[in-house]
């Protein structure tokens, strides 16, 4: 499903963020990406979402090399990937409903289908009933769940999360992890970057460990 072959990434300031990464994640797997701060976790996820382009090597998603994807095809590619990123990326002048609906509106879904799917998605993250609220009045954990609802609303086969529990306390973090496990159980490939070792130490999933841009053995 996700396959890296000898991938390098250097930023414009010549900083080598990733060097010679090769690994693969099978379809339907749940995998953690760990490593110290600055190890390159966010960079790796951005390469998959094509927010950044790799400098060298191949990234195969569904056996297709996404490095060859032209700029104007990126939006369609991104619709297959749910993104839960560090800084919430919610629109604070719109209701919860409108925030979650955004990927569907962008894809040109019709009205009735949007309503149905948004409610289904909010139901999964236990936020049904908050559709009309503005994100501002929600707690931090609830905001994060809105982001997750938006990420899964068009049922992407891949879900990427960057520090989804970054600014939540431990108890809430466990709830968020349970959510990801639920999505994984219905077949979604889940890839979560976190530096919180305690949180995942007891979980039975695969992990990829980064150290200064290299894979740690």
């Amino acid at each position, binding site marked *: 499903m996700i396959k890296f072959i000898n991938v390098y990434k250097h930023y414009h300031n010549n900083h080598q963020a990733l060097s010679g990464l090769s690994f693969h994640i099978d379809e339907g797997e749940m995998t953690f990406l760990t490593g110290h701060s600055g190890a390159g976790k966010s960079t790796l996820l951005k390469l998959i979402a094509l927010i950044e382009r790799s400098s060298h090597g191949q990234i195969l998603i569904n056996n297709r090399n996404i490095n060859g994807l032209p700029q104007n095809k990126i939006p369609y590619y991104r619709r297959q990937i749910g993104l839960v990123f560090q800084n919430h990326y919610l629109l604070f002048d719109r209701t919860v409903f409108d925030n979650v609906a955004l990927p569907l509106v*962008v894809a040109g879904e019709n009205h009735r289908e949007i309503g149905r799917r948004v409610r289904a998605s909010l139901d999964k993250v236990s936020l049904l009933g908050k559709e009309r609220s503005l994100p501002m009045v929600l707690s931090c954990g609830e905001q994060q769940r809105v982001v997750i609802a938006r990420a899964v609303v068009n049922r992407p086969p891949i879900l990427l999360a960057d520090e989804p529990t970054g600014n939540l306390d431990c108890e809430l973090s466990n709830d968020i992890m349970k959510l990801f496990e639920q999505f994984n159980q219905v077949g979604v490939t889940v890839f979560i970057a976190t530096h919180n070792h305690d949180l995942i130490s007891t979980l039975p999933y695969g992990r990829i460990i980064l150290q200064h841009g290299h894979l740690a053995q």
Partner: protein
Amino acid sequence: MNHIRFNLKVYLLRHLQVMLFSLGQLWRQLLTSTMTVLVISISLALPAGLYILLQNIKQVSNQWNYVSQISLFMEYNFSDRQANTFTNKLQSWPEIDAVKYQTSNKSLENFRKLSGLDDLLNNLPNNPLPATIIINIKKDSLNPDTINNLLIRLEGFAEVEQAQFDMEWLKRLRSINKTGQLGIGILTTLLSLSVLLVIGNTIRLSIINRQSEIKVIKLVGGTNNFINRPFLYAGFWFGALGGIVAWFILLLTMALLSAPINELTLLYNSQFNFQWFLSPMIIALPISGIILGIFSSWIATKSYLSNIEPH
């Protein structure tokens, strides 16, 4: 078939939504929008007004197109009896199309009609006006050399006091016309450029205002077209509203100027009627505004939107 029609309906409906949404956005920033619309309307009304003025000047000069005539003012002792032989002689010249004799009395009568100076003319002891002969020149002889040559030969006759081919003012009018067209061209280009900059800047500001929203939309798979659309519609509205306001500016100008203009034209030529072109303008102004507006916002989105990427 049914399926396609259904999708088209959804598509059009979505466009309509975005269109109205953009109008709502303009309303929310009323002051900025009003300024932008005003600048656009002035930029459209100014060349339109000049164009109207020029069309009217052209109309005047076209009315005088048939002045391919030479007037011969005869000596005072030229009698009506001499006229017949003289006109027959002229008639045989190859450059001359038609010859018409006008007695001095007839000249006076015409002048009386034109000037309205009845009282003064009645008090004159005798008719001060000479007899005139009006010569129509053949079309193919209407060039400066031939006419000059003709004038010299005509003035050579003892009976002729003066031969006159008065085209100077017409030439002047035509050159005003040409200069005016050039001027309008330059003005229109400059003003279009300023519209481009004004709309471009307004769109740029609203792009900056909505930067975080644009990033999120790109992140969840929004295409550039989807993101551009509201801005293009904003350009559409700016142009359309600017065009309509420009038309009202013309209307206002007409209300203020038509009375003095009519007075002026009456003094010179009673047949002339100043045309305001209001009905073609109510279509032409908004359409040029819309074209200009969409083009400007398209340039603005092209140059600013691509820089905004999620990080």
